[in-house]
């Protein structure tokens, strides 16, 4: 049969077929012969007997021509193949019903109620009926259905609903099943009721239940609708696919992180401090618009920065807590120890962020991680790369293009692998790659050295209070370097001409990340190592907070400029001048890295400026709208294949690993090792910030109150690093075990894959055998038909021999 061969060879048609599982009607438009097969399956066997004879003969004629080399399978073989269990699972009701019947039985057996009495005895032997074969009569299907109904009745209502909802059947079928499985209870209630109809009470109850249910549904949908930017995200996903969407989702995640961080800070630090403002130390400068850029000036004397917070115990009994907080706390008043609150709130927010980050990372790992490398498997690319978020025609065309390029690239890579490049070419590639990396590392090095020298110059210069624009010099330099280097890297990547696009993307990410982390490391050194020493008399924490604020503002401005010039102007140029009609691509990697950079800045600065997350939230809100507008107007979807699920994992990992961990190390260093400035802030009298906790614990110990276990616990578990190292050793042991488990699982997976492959070979072998048997039969038929004694019906069509008690005339 030629058409069914097309099923095997003609890829595009199968793509739609496999991916979408069209209804038989749609499929009939694609190729009708398979449609016939499906019809045969769903039709009753009695009809089949009448109908098949001409069909089979006609098809048998079609089979012989039109085959190029491939084994021509006869129609009977094809019918058997079509009725194989995996082909029919979506189409045959009988199979589905029997499968679900089986599942229901298992579920009911697991459920705890003693239900054995409920089931009619006739249902028992049917347990053996688990069979997915398709040549079922109406009788059988009906029987199965009735069995299923009986089993469904045995389940509780919730389980039954769930079960019925999940079945891959048509709505009418489901409704029928549901009604049938509901009815006996209704009948029972009917019998139990005093009057013939439903009792008033039960009807009322039903109405109430229904109303509650619909209310719940409405609330749920309302909640769903109330999620921010729902429409905008849908629009982006529809127009640009899920890869671009993942950038915006990441942005939303960052927003959530910042909000979560901001809330405790607002509640325990900012709000309390704002309620009990300290005495103004000196004249407060007036507000001039420049503060928005530099973060200094008026802002210094607000809750924005570390220096404003008092180091005393705040309590309602004292109207104005002074240095040392002398007034004795009255009975019932709650003394609020500001240094302790500062330390604990910061620690708690970081801990919370860490937990959520790690959890979401592991979650996304579980979602996206698939066993074995799926890269380079052609079947996956062909069948599973369609992005179902896309809704518009234009976008779908773009996606078709991208899949096409992807396939081309895959094939090219395959060819390359089959025919390895010459030694000379490889050498050249290696040299180019090495040169590229050398250049990148060199430029990174240059950038860091430049930042270092520039910061030294800034330190040498007599500080004029940091008022003017010159405070913005360092952030400007850093941003310019960042931008320039990223463009340089992009240019280098185009020069290098990588074979695989994925490698190129990862390399770009890697290079940019190295650059940014190196610059940030140098800056951290600059702040904690150099600035602390030079700003002896002043409040260095305020200075660092302002510096980070400036960095964020300047970075934001540069992002705006980048989207203005890199996207808008470039589009105008390419449309007007070059007439190419090609819009610039949306560079996901670079944008995401920018986001991560901004988030790192926030985390670094939150200790010195508790309101920095609020600034970041504002920044992100603006950014979302601007990027969206720019994307809609100027950009097109990237041509590179991006797996959205993988990408979110990569983003979260990058956010977690260098960014969060680096910030945590920085803050730990600042809290444990650096001496806080002695003129401002909550820790002004202490040696390190961490001492606030120690002092408190010691005071508790002296007080000797009921919480005496706390100092003990603190002494043994926290102060003693031995226990921390012991915990690390245990964690290491558990990690080791998990790694071993993963290894073992890999082995198991390999075994299973091999087994499946072997089974597939068995199947191929059997199919060939089947085919050869039919061929044999076809060859021997002419000889046999002359034999009058033989009933000819046996040899007409092999597939019909399933019903031997159905002799037909030729």
């Amino acid at each position, binding site marked *: 049969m030629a058409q069914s061969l097309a099923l095997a060879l003609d890829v595009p048609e199968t793509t739609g077929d496999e991916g979408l599982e069209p209804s038989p009607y749609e499929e009939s438009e694609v190729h009708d012969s398979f449609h016939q097969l499906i019809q045969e399956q769903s039709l009753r066997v009695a009809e089949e007997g009448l109908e098949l004879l001409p069909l089979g003969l006609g098809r048998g004629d079609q089979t012989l021509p039109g085959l190029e080399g491939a084994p021509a399978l006869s129609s009977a073989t094809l019918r*058997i193949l079509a009725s*194989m*269990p995996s082909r029919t699972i979506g189409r045959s009701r009988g199979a589905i019903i029997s499968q679900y019947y*089986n599942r229901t039985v298992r579920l009911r*057996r697991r459920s*705890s109620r*003693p239900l054995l009495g409920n089931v009619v005895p006739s249902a028992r032997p049917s347990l053996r*009926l*688990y*069979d997915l*074969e398709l040549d079922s009569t109406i009788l059988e299907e009906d029987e199965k259905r009735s069995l299923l109904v009986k089993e469904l009745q045995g389940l509780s209502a919730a389980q039954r609903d769930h079960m019925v909802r999940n079945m891959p059947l048509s709505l009418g079928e489901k409704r029928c099943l549901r009604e049938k499985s509901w009815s006996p209870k209704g009948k029972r209630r009917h019998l139990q009721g005093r009057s013939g109809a439903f009792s008033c009470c039960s009807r009322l109850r039903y109405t109430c239940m229904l109303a509650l249910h619909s209310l719940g549904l409405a609330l749920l949908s309302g909640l769903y609708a109330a999620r921010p930017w729902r429409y905008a995200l849908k629009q982006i996903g529809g127009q640009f696919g899920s890869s671009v969407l993942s950038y915006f989702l990441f942005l939303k995640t960052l927003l959530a992180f910042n909000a979560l961080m901001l809330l405790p800070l607002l509640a325990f630090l900012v709000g309390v401090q704002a309620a009990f403002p300290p005495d103004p130390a000196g004249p407060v400068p007036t507000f001039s618009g420049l503060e928005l850029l530099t973060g200094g000036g008026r802002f210094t004397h607000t809750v924005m920065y570390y220096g404003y917070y008092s180091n005393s115990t705040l309590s309602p009994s004292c109207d104005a807590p002074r240095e040392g907080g002398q007034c004795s706390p009255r009975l019932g008043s709650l003394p609020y120890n500001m240094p302790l609150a500062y330390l604990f709130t910061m620690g708690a927010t970081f801990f919370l962020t860490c937990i959520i980050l*790690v959890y979401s*990372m*592991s979650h996304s790992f579980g979602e996206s*991680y*698939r066993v074995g490398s799926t890269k380079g498997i052609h079947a996956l690319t062909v069948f599973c790369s369609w992005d179902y978020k896309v809704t518009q025609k234009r976008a779908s065309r773009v996606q078709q293009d991208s899949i096409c390029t992807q396939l081309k690239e895959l094939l090219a890579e395959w060819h390359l692998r089959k025919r390895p490049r010459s030694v000379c070419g490889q050498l050249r590639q290696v040299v180019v790659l090495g040169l590229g990396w050398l250049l990148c590392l060199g430029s990174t090095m240059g950038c860091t050295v430049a930042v270092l020298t520039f910061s030294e110059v800034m330190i040498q210069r007599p500080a004029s209070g940091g008022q003017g624009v010159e405070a913005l010099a360092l952030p400007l330099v850093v941003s310019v370097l960042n931008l320039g280097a990223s463009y340089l890297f992009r240019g280098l990547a185009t020069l290098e001409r990588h074979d695989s696009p994925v490698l190129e993307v990862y390399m770009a990410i890697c290079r940019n990340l190295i650059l940014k982390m190196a610059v940030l490391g140098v800056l951290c050194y600059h702040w904690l190592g150099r600035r602390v020493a030079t700003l002896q008399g002043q409040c260095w924490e305020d200075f660092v907070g302002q510096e980070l604020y400036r960095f964020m503002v300047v970075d934001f401005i540069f992002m705006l400029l980048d989207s203005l010039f890199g996207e808008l102007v470039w589009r105008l140029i390419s449309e007007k001048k070059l007439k190419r009609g090609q819009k610039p691509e949306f560079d996901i990697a670079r944008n995401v890295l920018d986001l991560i950079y901004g988030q790192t800045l926030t985390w670094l600065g939150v200790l010195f400026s508790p309101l920095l997350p609020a600034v970041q939230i504002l920044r992100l809100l603006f950014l979302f709208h601007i990027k969206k507008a720019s994307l809609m107007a100027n950009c097109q979807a990237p041509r590179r294949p991006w797996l959205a699920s993988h990408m979110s994992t990569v983003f979260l990992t990058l956010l*977690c690993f260098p960014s969060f*961990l680096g910030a*945590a*190390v920085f803050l*730990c260093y600042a*809290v444990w090792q650096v001496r806080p400035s002695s003129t401002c802030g909550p820790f002004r009298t202490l040696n390190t910030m*961490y001492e606030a906790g120690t002092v408190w614990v010691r005071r508790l110990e002296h007080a000797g109150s009921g919480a005496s276990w706390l100092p003990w616990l603190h002494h043994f578990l*926290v102060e*003693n*690093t*031995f226990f*921390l*190292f*012991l915990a*690390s*050793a245990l*964690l290491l042991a*558990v990690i*080791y*075990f*998990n790694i*071993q*488990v*993963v290894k073992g*699982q890999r082995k*198991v997976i390999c075994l*299973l894959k091999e*087994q*499946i492959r*072997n*089974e*597939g070979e*068995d*199947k191929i*072998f*059997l*199919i060939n*055998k*089947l085919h050869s*048997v039919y061929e*044999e039969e076809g060859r021997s038929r002419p000889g046999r038909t002359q034999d009058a004694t033989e009933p000819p019906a046996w040899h007409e069509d*092999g597939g019909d*021999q399933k019903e*031997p008690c159905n002799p037909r005339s030729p």
Partner: protein
Amino acid sequence: MFRQWSVQSGPAPRRPESQAASEELWEQEVERLCASRTPVRMLPYAMADKRFIRELREPEGVKTTFWQRWHRPRRVARQHLREAEQRLARGFGLWEGALYEIGGLFGTGIQSYFTFLRFLLLLNLLTMLLTACFVLLPLVWLRPPELGPALKLRLQCSSSPLPQSDIPRFHNPLWNILTGRAFNNTYLFYGAYRAGPESSSEYSIRLAYLLSPMVCLLLCFCGILQRMAEGLPQQTLLGQRYRTPLSAKVFSSWDFCIRVWEAATIKKHEISNELKMELEEGRRVELAQQQTRAQKACRLLTYLRTNILIVLLVVGAISAIFWATKYSQDNKEESLFLVLQYLPPGVISLVNFLGPQLFTVLIQLENYPPGTEVNLTLIWCVVLKLASLGMFSFSLGQTVLCIGRNKTSCESYGYNACDYQCWENSVGEELYKLIIFNFLLTVAFAFLVSLPRRLLVERFSGWFWTWLDREEFLVPKNVLDIVAAQTVTWMGLFYCPLLPLLNSVFLFLTFYIKKYTLLRNSRASPRRFRASSSTFFFHLVLLLGLLLAAVPLAYVISSTHSSWDCGLFTNYSAPWQVVPELVALQLPLPSQRALRYLSSHAFSFPLLILLSIVLTVCISQSRANARAIQGLRKQLVWQVQEKWHLVDDLSRLLPELSPEPGSPHSRASRPRSFCPGFPCPGSPGPRTPRLAPSNRLSSSSLGAPSASVPASRFHFPSRTEL
């Protein structure tokens, strides 16, 4: 070319057609073999075939590249290295033959005990080696300046004068050896080690003495972890809900190491027991599902009752140990009673002897599922064993270091200086006694209980003697015994550095005693004991013992005052003080700073965060893998079902083509034996008669190449189950 393939056995193909088909098949196979990268050693073929495959893969004529020529010797060398490493891990073939013999006679379950023993012996020897290399040899080599007699402190002990002067002592060399007093001034105990003050250039014996126990513990920890990972139970690999299929139990539970008839009988019993247990468990699960909530609550309550009773017993036992230790320490100089000296070890042994019996009885009273019963008894035994050891060390600490009681007697010196001149030596003596007693008990039990019992049972007949029978060799009890001894050894690493040597000697002897007992005096337990799952458990218990030993050691090293007039650390407030002093003395400034940072919170907290992140990644990965395994298994089931569908069709077709009418193919007789959860092994039984006519048919009339191919030619891979 293919003639030499021994695999191509079976009926010689007569027709050229079929020959061609098979040739084609084998060509494919050869192609596959050549393409695949699996090492030739792993292929399931005969030696000659393997050689042939290797030739096919690397023909002679093709010149090997320079890289390959350079690479191959390295690979071979690495392989040799790995083999040597494995041999080392197996103890240089120590007791190889004896182990084989035991495995053959009694199965792998009992063999695992002896392997475990050998592993412990290796650990002890390793520890000994380290101590000798880093402490003893330098001590002999450097020969520290003789300090003369230790400076005698004038102790202000108001209440009790030093007792040695008045009471006449019972001087018996044997007694002295048994209590360890004879070795008080040898390198066996802490007190005999002496060294001059630290200088900036010399090798520091103090540091070596301090660090070598810790390094040993660390090494043992790593070794145990590694062995544990080898024996990871299957469940962790395949997810919690995975249960071994019954078919695996039926087909793959035979122990092929067995060589003797009796062992085979035992194994048969074992397998039947296991199957019974499985069925019993299944019935139990069904019963439990039928229970109402109240019944369930009732059952849980009874379980709780038993466990509370056991907890009370354990607490009683522990307090008995506590009082015994205290009593024996208080009456230390009542020299007349050797019994008193051995009171704590005796009580510990008694408790550990009686406890398990009681637990078994108590747990059998309740209606536990059989698997749970065994596990629960074991767990309680472990708890008792480790808790008694822990209690012992705690009570020692209380008497010596005044932990957890009024500190009047310890105030001036940091330890109970009036009663203990050199408290480390006393603690070392206690541990020494414990080990000696443990070994003596083993010997006595072997020769005074098991041997007479065997003799009596062999001599007499009668229902009592039949009931008594030989002693059962219980693996868990024996394992717990040697684990306890090992824990004591680890506890004493700091106080008597040569204890591992003693323990290794004892272990060496124990091996032969136990082997003798096993071969001559006892019978294998009929209860099932599986080597694969038990190994993990044994090592887990060992790990717990290690932790139990490490915690007091860490406490002592970090925060107690060592004795004033004996040992290496006389001038230090705590032994650990040596490390900062030496760091300040010998290391340059940057590395000092680095070390200080490494030991501070600023390093350990990020480290913890990093480790937990890595752990989450690992866990999520293993979860994803488990999900993938589930999916693959489902897919496998589908594949197998499809295959049988095809086989069915084929086998239904073939007889119909044959001239004889009325071949048996009624649908009702079709086997529907697809196990819903797992592929069936091989072809099911009813299939064979139907395949038989087709076979005959194929060879006679049709001439198709062996129509029964699915069963005969193709070894169905689904036969190898997971």
